[in-house]
Structures are given as C-alpha cells and as structure tokens.
C-alpha cells in the first residue's frame, strides 16, 4: 500500500548501553529464568528441611571457611566490576582492557577456592537427601561461575583484538559485568543455605 514518510531515523546512534540495548534486556531475561531456577532449588531445599525434625539428618556440619573465602572474593570483585562497567559505558579502551583482565583473574580465584568447597561439605551427594541438596546447590552455582568466567575470558581476548574497538563490544562488556553482579548476588543466599542453615538444626 502507499506510503508517506513521517519520521526520519538517520540521526539515531548505532548502539546504546544498559536498558537502551536489547542485549541488556536479553541478559535480564536469562537472569530472571536462572534466578527462578535458583529460587526453586532453594525452595526444594527448604521444603525438605521442614519435613524432618532435625535437618542435616545427623550429618557433620560443613566446614564454612572455603565458602566464606569465596564469598569474600566475590564481594570484593564487585568493586572493579563496577569500574569496568563504567569505563565500558564511556567506551574507554585502556581501562576496559585492564578491567577485563582483572575480572578474569577475580573470576578464576573463587573458582579455584570453590574446588575445596566440595570436600568441605563433609558429606557426599549419595549419603542422604541433605548431602544431595548441598551438592546440587553448590553445583548449580558452580556451573554459573564457570560459564561466566569462560565468557569473561573470551571477551577479554576479544577486546585485545582489532574487533575490540566497536560500540557493540563495549556494550557486551557492560552486559558481562551486569551478569557478574547476578552471579555474585545469587551466591549470597546459597552460601547461607549451604553453610549456615545446617547449623540451626
């Protein structure tokens, strides 16, 4: 059918940061559904705790130190992550490259400590339901940790190539930082469920 020009878009920019960019919304969407997964797993855990007079079912208490160290590392990592997000928004290449390297390392560090968390649970997944849930929760978060660290490393390499200096990339860096906040945030309740709820019963 006939058309009449009504709006001119030629002046619009070719990329945007944060809520202006679809990728940010996509990341949010995946956070929503993964967060739902975390919530349901935690819900299942709490459901089982209510069924038994003494949760932990006569298993030894988990050793919380490795977990606590991971928690601290993650919280610390939020600071450089924030700066990284800001310099990405301003499309500054040097601080972004530096920040990405730092974040890759700060991602690997908790992952290394995470290795010692599993034995520190003091129970195996096949001993009883309590052990199963601990391993499930820890495993669930570990997969997120691994995927995001992998993503960060790939992106870091990318930022050092010629593909780096484009608005899209800076947008990706911003979204990656955004997702890292999510990974840290989801860990806090899981940390409490794994290491401190068993100490109540």
């Amino acid at each position, binding site marked *: *059918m*006939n*058309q*009449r*020009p*009504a*709006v*001119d*878009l*030629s*002046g*619009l*920019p*070719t*990329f*945007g940061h944060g809520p*202006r*960019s*679809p990728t940010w*919304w*996509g990341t949010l*969407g*995946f956070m*929503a*559904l*993964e967060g*739902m*997964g975390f919530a*349901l*797993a935690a819900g*299942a855990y709490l*459901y*089982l705790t209510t*069924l*038994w007079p003494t949760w932990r*079912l006569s298993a030894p208490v988990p050793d919380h130190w490795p977990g606590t160290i991971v928690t601290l590392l993650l919280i610390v990592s939020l600071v450089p992550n924030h700066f990284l997000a800001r310099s990405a*928004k*301003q*499309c*500054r*290449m*040097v601080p972004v490259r530096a920040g990405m390297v730092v974040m890759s390392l700060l991602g690997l560090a908790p992952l290394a400590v995470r290795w010692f968390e599993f034995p520190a649970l003091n129970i195996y*997944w*096949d*001993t*009883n*339901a*309590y*052990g*199963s849930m601990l*391993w*499930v929760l820890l495993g669930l978060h570990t997969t997120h940790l691994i995927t995001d660290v992998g993503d960060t490393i*790939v992106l870091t390499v*990318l930022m050092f190539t010629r*593909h780096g*200096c*484009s*608005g*899209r990339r*800076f947008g990706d860096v911003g979204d990656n930082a955004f997702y890292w906040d999510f990974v840290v945030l989801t860990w806090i309740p899981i940390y409490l469920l794994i290491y401190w709820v068993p100490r109540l019963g």
Partner: protein
Amino acid sequence: MSSADLASERAPATERQASAEGDLAPEHDGPRDTGMDDAMLHGWLARTWGTAPGIVGALSSVDHKVIARRYLITAFVFLCLGGLNAVAMRIQLSGPQRGLIGPDLYNQLFTMHGVTMMFLFAVPIVQATGIYLVPLMVGSRNIAFPRLNAFSYWVYLSGGVFAWISFLLNMAPDVGWFAYVPLSGPEFAPGKRADVWAQMITYTEVSSLAVAVATIVTVLKQRAPGMSLDKIPLYVWALLVTSFVVVFAMPAVMIASTFLILDRLVGTHIFNPAEGGDALLFQHLFWFFGHPEVYIIFLPATGMVSAIIPVFARRPVFGHLGLVLSLIAVGFLSFGLWVHHMFATGLPRLGASFFTASSMMIAIPNGVQIFCWLATFWDGRPVIRTPLLFVFGFFVIFVIGGLTGVMLASVPLDLQVHDTYFVVAHFHYVLIGGSVFPLLGAAYFWFPKISGRMLSERLGRWHFWLAFIGFNAAFFPMHLVGLWGMPRRVYTYPAELGWGNINLFISAGAILFFLSFVLFAFNLVHGALKGAPAGDNPWDAGTLEWATSSPPPSYNFARIPVVTHVEPLWAEREALPVATGLRVDVRELLISTVAEAHPDIREKSAAPSIWPLLAAVAVGGTFLFSIFTPWAIVWGAAPVAITLTGWFWPKGAPEDEE
C-alpha cells in the same frame, strides 16, 4: 500523533558525545533508504536480508519467517504422530479386555502421546506462530537475537527426534507425561526410559526458554515508532505474557527432571523418603510448571481469537484494555493454583481450600475475555468465514472445558473425578477447544500471509464440521464414563463394568476427529499449490502484518511503518506513514523505547551463521550422552564452549564489527 515527538532528539545527543570522548572506531556509513525508489530499495534490502542459496545457506538462515516455517511444519508432524498414538490407544480401548496392545506398549503410547502433544506440539507451535507473526505485527525487520532463535529450533528438533527414536527402539518413557516418582525413580523404572523423559524435557525447555526471551525483547524493544503500550495488538500482548509465564514456569520442570536424573544416575536421595527425601516434592515442582503450562498453551490462542474476531465482526475488539489486563491477571494467577492437581495426595484441608479459592478466581479474568469477545459481535451479523467458524467452535467447546474446570477446582468434587476420564475429557476440552481450534482458525486466517495463497473455503467448512463433531463425539462421553468410575491410563477394563459401548462410541469419534486432520493436511497442500492468490490483505484486516506483501519479503517491510492506531491499517487507509533513514547495505533495524516506542537506536541484527546449528548439535549430543554417564557433561563442555565461542566471535561482517 505527530511525527515531531517520534524522532527523539535527546538520545543521539548524549550518545554522540559519549562516542566522541570514547575510543571508538570511526562511524561507518552506507546508503540509506531515504528517498530511494521502491525497486532499488527492494534490490538493496533483498540482497542484505535474504537467506543465502544452497544447503549451508538454508541451515545458516536466521530469518524469523524461515525458522518459524520449520517450527510449524515440525510441530505439525509431531501432532500427527501424537494423534496416531491416540488412535492406537482408542482402538485398544474400543472394547473390554482387548488384547491388541499390551500394558508395556500401551504405557509407552500414552506417555508419548502426552509428551508429544505438550512438549513437541502445543508449546512449540504457539511459540512458532509468535516467531512468525510478532516481528511482523510490531513492524520490525527480524526477531531479536535471531541466532538464538535458530539455535532454539535445532535443539527442539533434536529433542523431538531423540524422543521418537527411543520410541522406535522400545525405550520410550512409560511413566506418564508427569513421570511421578517413585514410579519413574531409580528403583521402579529400570533401563533408560525415564531418563529419556527427563532429558527430552531439558531439550524442549531450553528451546522454548530461548524463544521466550527473544519474543519478550522483540516486543519490548523492536516495536515500530508510535506503537506505545496501548497500541500493541492483543495477539502480541498474549505472546508477551505467555513468554513471561514461560520464563518463570519452565525452570521448575527443568529442576524436577534434573533432580530425577540425578537420583537415577548418580544416586542422590532427593526423592527417597528413607534418606530424607520426599516423593511429593516432585509433584510440587512438576505442577508449579504444569499448571502455568496450560496457560502457556492457552494464552496465545486467546491472542489469535482477539486477532480474528475484529476482522470478521468488522470493528476493533471491545474492551481492549480489559482484555490486556485479564491476560496479565491470568498470567499471574496461573502460578497460584498448581496444588489443585494434588488434592488427592491428602494435603491439609485448609491449604487445599485456599487453592480451591484461587482456582475459582482465575475463572474471572477468563470470563472477562469471553464477555468482551461476545460483546464485540453485538454490532451486527459477522462475516462467516472458516477462521470465524473455528472461533465459534472455540467458544462452544472451551466454555464447557472452563466450566468443568470450575468443578475440578472444588476439593471434594475433585476427589471423585481426579485421575478419571472426566479429567481427560476436561483438559481435552480446554486444550483442544481452547488452543487447537483457535490454532486451526489462525491457520486459515494467516495461511494467505505465509504462503500468498488462500485455503479452500469449501474444504475448510467440511474440515470444521468434521473436527467439531468428531471432537465432541470423542470427548463428551468421557465425562460420563469418568463419573462411572473409569480411571485414566488403564490399558484395558473388565467387561462387567459396562463401559464397553460408550468406549466404542468414543473410539469412533476419535477416529473421525483424526480424519478431520487428514482433510486439513490435504487442504494445506492443495492450498499451497493451487490456492487462489491472496494479495496483501485478503481479509481487510487492521494490523501491520497485512501491510506487507504475502508472503512477506525477507526484510518484512520496505520501510518501517509508523503506528498511529491500534488497528493501523484501518486508521490509515490512503497512505501508511513510514520511517526513513535506515541503512540498506547492512542488517539495520530500529530499536525503540520500551513504553512509548520512541525511535532510539539503529542497531545491526545478527547475520546468518552456521554456528547455532553446530552449537545445537554439541548441546544435543551432551544431553543425549548424559543419560548414560554424568561425565558426558564434562566432555560435552568442550564442544559446547567451542561452538558458542565460534557463534559469538566476530567474522568481519559489518553486523559484527560496527
């Protein structure tokens, strides 16, 4: 709305300054569509957006219409397979003590019927319709995250093929589509049958979650200029709400199936009451997904009804706002009534009564929808064409299903009919009446847009009456036989209970209903080959998908339309206002603001790529082997990581670079 406030001034300003101070590659530029004549514009856009020829080109396509067509065809094939399952079961049940099919096969049959219809037909086909129509209806050039969209199809396909190959190998799940533990658990389900169920779920949920996210972002960020929230077509609203329900419901079943496979494969005790687990936990998780699932299937259908009625009632739908609000209300409430599937498990009385109330409550927004549609008709005699016939069928059947649903919501009453053929009748009235009939109407309504040809009206009417009569003959008597005490999921029944004649009658109806789909398939083929040319807008409908040619070009719209009314084509009969200024040499589409749909960004849409297919193969293989050993996850991580990196790594196409 004037064009002045549409061209937003502020956004670019800040952005230019940002990019000025940042270390950015110099802005590339290319030819724009401004002032370009139509032929030249078509040449450019076709070259830019087209799907490359050849098998690799086809496999790399990221065109939402191409992907959607594949989805639709695949889902229709699965519908026929699931239907054949049903026919086989009905033949076995057509008389007491029939020996045609033994329990082992029968249990696989009804499980595959449920699994196929729910996970391989119903959800994929409503999402596929959305993949095709939503970008057109919001006036965009492609769906958001087109590669994710392609990936979702390949994962869905591999999941379905996986399930059906297992069926051919006599290792299909035989524990029901709900796969309750302990029956599906490690002790009572030897072999890999239950694992096939669990992993098939994971495949299909991954794909529908991906589609849901893509749909949400398309609706929120890629709407044509001026399509503010109050001007979004109801069908798009329905898909938006559905996608949100998917995002929050599907994880529940993924968690459930993962717990199950962990129990079976590595010996966790999540569902083992002897070691601190609990069997009911599975039911809670499953139905927390399972009930919203019904609305995931039903809400898009209401969107189709809302799209078809105005066209044949020749007026905008009555109570647009009310319909939107009730869509949202249904979306929310659907999470509050999963327990009414578990009344017979002996839950505390008070809790059960609460879920009675909430289950009753959801009938109110659904009632609002029904009343608004009815009111839309009251201006005059509507134009009766096949799509509208199916909508009428929807009213007749779905209202019965909804009312029997009210019966099931009552705890005591449910205890008599739960897990009987009454329930079978109820949810077939809801799902077939509430979803399949609108889908068939939608098929007749949008087939001209998709294929460029009309479906035969005469065959259409025959199809409708055959389906309508067959359906009611097959499913209405089930209410009765259920009340006479016939439970679900039985492969046979004793003669002395006197269920023989009525079951014979039901089977006859079921076969009639199946034949109606054979007729439909013929009509589709016939229409695609010999149908009368449709033209752009055969029904004189009002929404944007009818503004472009049938079938739409790869780039959907030569120029992005500007929306001034909820039924833009009715409001702008002489000339459609359009936006200009997009580049034509790269895949550039318009990103607009969430609420007001102000033009905001000219963003590049991803170019075709084979990597989504490779990633799907890697992911699918990982899922497949993870039913044999947990280590598959570890081995599989490598190919998955490689393919995903290949997917995201820029290959020098301007879409990646600029």
